[in-house]
């Protein structure tokens, strides 16, 4: 992830090879939208050039087409089921597709559980990621900063199914005292109210902690990248004024890196929203809809789809899950788009 260079690459003369000799550097400006760098009628480009250009723009186009196709195909498969849905898709908390002739499915509970677990994970991970990014860019000596950064990146290398297994087998029992304390002593606060599960392991709380660990390296990587680009002269100016290290950070680093930090957090949020297998293994199902407590259980979009994957045999029930997948797609699309807009040109993730 580096600074996105906006400067255009130098153009080759007339964009083609046959007119060798006219080696003046092309000075086309970017005021030629959509056609930049083309021949402008001077001479026709060589065949190799045309094929190669076609291949590259075709590949670029393919990426755009892939996104469009994802949305389109999911929509096409979801519509028949949505039309056959006897419940309100947006507000119904039940997701019952057992009888293809009588589908009742809605995403209210999926949305609540997905958002609650992801936002909780974000709240846990954001300050820690900020601290790590500052540590790696501003505190740690250059020599050790790189290996340390690699160690944090290792967190991203652990497959999510392993986080899930660890979360339920090791982490959940360890969190039990904290969860018990929160529910018993702070239960008046709606997030810590007794949930719809009779147990305190395998709740949204547990799942959120696991998700926080998983998105930590993503937020850290983006934030670290931006912080390390903080303008040298701002930092030096602050130092010259006798600022302490913390004051330098507050005056020069944070203002510059804020948008990158937010963008990184949004990317982390996107990842948490779509996390599948760890959530499926950790968060337990409940019989009643979530009441906005962290000690609730239930399914997220992703974990519900994965849990039903082996039953994808009939078109209408399958379409119901695809409809849920479509909502998840739109949700992550929006979150990632926001990340990109917030980041401006500073990050690419």
């Amino acid at each position, binding site marked *: 992830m580096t600074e996105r260079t906006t400067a255009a690459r130098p153009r080759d003369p007339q964009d083609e090879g046959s007119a060798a000799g006219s080696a003046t550097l092309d000075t086309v400006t970017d005021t030629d939208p959509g056609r930049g760098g083309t021949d402008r009628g001077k001479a026709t480009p060589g065949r190799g050039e045309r094929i190669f250009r076609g291949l590259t723009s075709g590949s670029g186009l393919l990426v755009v087409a892939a996104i469009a196709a994802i949305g389109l195909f999911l929509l096409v498969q979801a519509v028949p089921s949505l039309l056959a849905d006897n419940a309100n898709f947006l507000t119904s908390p039940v997701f019952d597709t*057992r009888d293809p002739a009588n589908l009742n499915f809605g995403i209210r509970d999926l949305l609540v559980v997905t958002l609650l677990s992801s936002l909780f994970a974000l709240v846990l991970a954001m300050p820690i990621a900020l601290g790590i990014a500052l540590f790696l860019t501003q505190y740690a000596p250059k020599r050790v900063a790189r290996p340390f950064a690699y160690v944090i990146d290792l967190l991203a290398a652990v497959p999510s199914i392993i986080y899930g297994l660890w979360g339920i087998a090791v982490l959940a*029992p360890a969190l039990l005292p904290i969860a018990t304390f929160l529910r018993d002593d702070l239960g008046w606060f709606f997030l810590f109210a007794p949930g719809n*599960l*009779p*147990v305190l*392991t*395998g709740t949204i709380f547990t799942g959120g902690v696991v998700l926080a660990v998983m998105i930590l390296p993503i937020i850290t990587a983006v934030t670290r990248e931006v912080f390390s680009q903080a303008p040298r002269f701002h930092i030096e100016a602050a130092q010259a004024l006798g600022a302490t290290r913390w004051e330098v950070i507050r005056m020069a680093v944070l203002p510059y890196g804020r948008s990158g930090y937010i963008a990184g957090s949004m990317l982390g949020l996107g990842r948490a929203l779509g996390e599948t297998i760890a959530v*499926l*293994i950790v968060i*337990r*199902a*409940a*019989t*009643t809809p979530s009441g906005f407590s962290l000690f609730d*259980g239930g399914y997220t979009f992703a974990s519900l789809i994965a*849990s*039903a994957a*082996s*039953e994808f*045999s*009939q078109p209408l029930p399958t379409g119901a899950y695809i409809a849920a997948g479509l909502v998840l797609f739109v949700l992550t699309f929006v979150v990632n788009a926001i990340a990109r807009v917030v980041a401006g040109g500073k990050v690419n993730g």
Partner: protein
Amino acid sequence: MRYQRRVAAIGLIAASALVLSACGSDENAGGGGVSAAPGVTCGGKPDLRSSGSSAQNNAMTRFVATYQQTCQGQTLNYTPSGSGAGRNEFLGGQTDFAGSDSALKDGDETTRAQQRCASPAWNLPLVFGPVAIAYNVPGVTDLVLDGPTAGRVFNGQVATWNDPAIAALNPGKQLPAAPIIVNFRSDESGTTENFQKYLVAASNGAYGKEAAQTFNGGVGAGARGSQGVADATKNTPNSVTYVESSFAQRGGLGMAQVINSGGGQAVPLTTESVATAVNNVQVTGQGNDLKLDLDSLYQASAPGAYPIALATYEIVCSNYADDQTAGAVRGFLQTALSPNAQQALPDAGYVPLPEQFKQRLTTAVNAIQ
């Protein structure tokens, strides 16, 4: 040249991948410890395909091991993709037979089966797996339940362990005042469906919910799969669940004794008590179609009959279009019914078929053409 060195490195990786692909093998000598079965006519198609119920997967694994040993060079690939998928794939002709927790439904499914086979399809209940009401209540052993009480535990009406309904069945036992935590299967499963069918059939209306692949009791916390509910019960004091007996045994959980619909003595879950229930089950299918009346199992009234068991079928064509397939299916099912295969079942959490019932299955299997 640095560039060439890199190419060489990539080549090296590719080469090592090739070497890797040559060194693996499926040979697991001594892995099963099974021996060849007598009285099996081998032959026909060398690789059968089947899919369906995951509840019978462990039994299938053992049958396949015996089959491979008995009929050298022949095998069966069983995919535990779920009963619904198994029936659909059989009806669509992708598999040679289906494994299913329920028989073909009358109407559409039976019609499609007739078309697929160009002959009637038979439901053969080959594998019976007892389902335990497994509990983890500190200080309580030999818990006794009956149908109506179990129904009210699993729908939340009986909410504490020292409820009078439970106490009446367990005189003299120290039942804690703790709330009952129900662990249920959150995935769709035949175990859930059959257990709820038992609750509906045996609770005299006390359960009051519908039987389905998902749990409708409205209480408790879900966990994925049999292992999931067994683990959850093991880790949560004062909790109870329903699970195949093998999982309860391995997890060291208590298994409730059940008073069946005939009243009388509480029946512990044993190979014999389940066999007694299976021997008394009614068949509703015609001729060699051995579709069962499951209510006669759940409402078993014979003394010493344990009423909660999952019956899983193999759904086959009575007359295959292809003799090669028919021969192989017959050979495989004969292997499954052989003593060698049957004696391995208790280890896997199933009951060997009682002799009388096995005779009827053998007749049907030998009639497959």
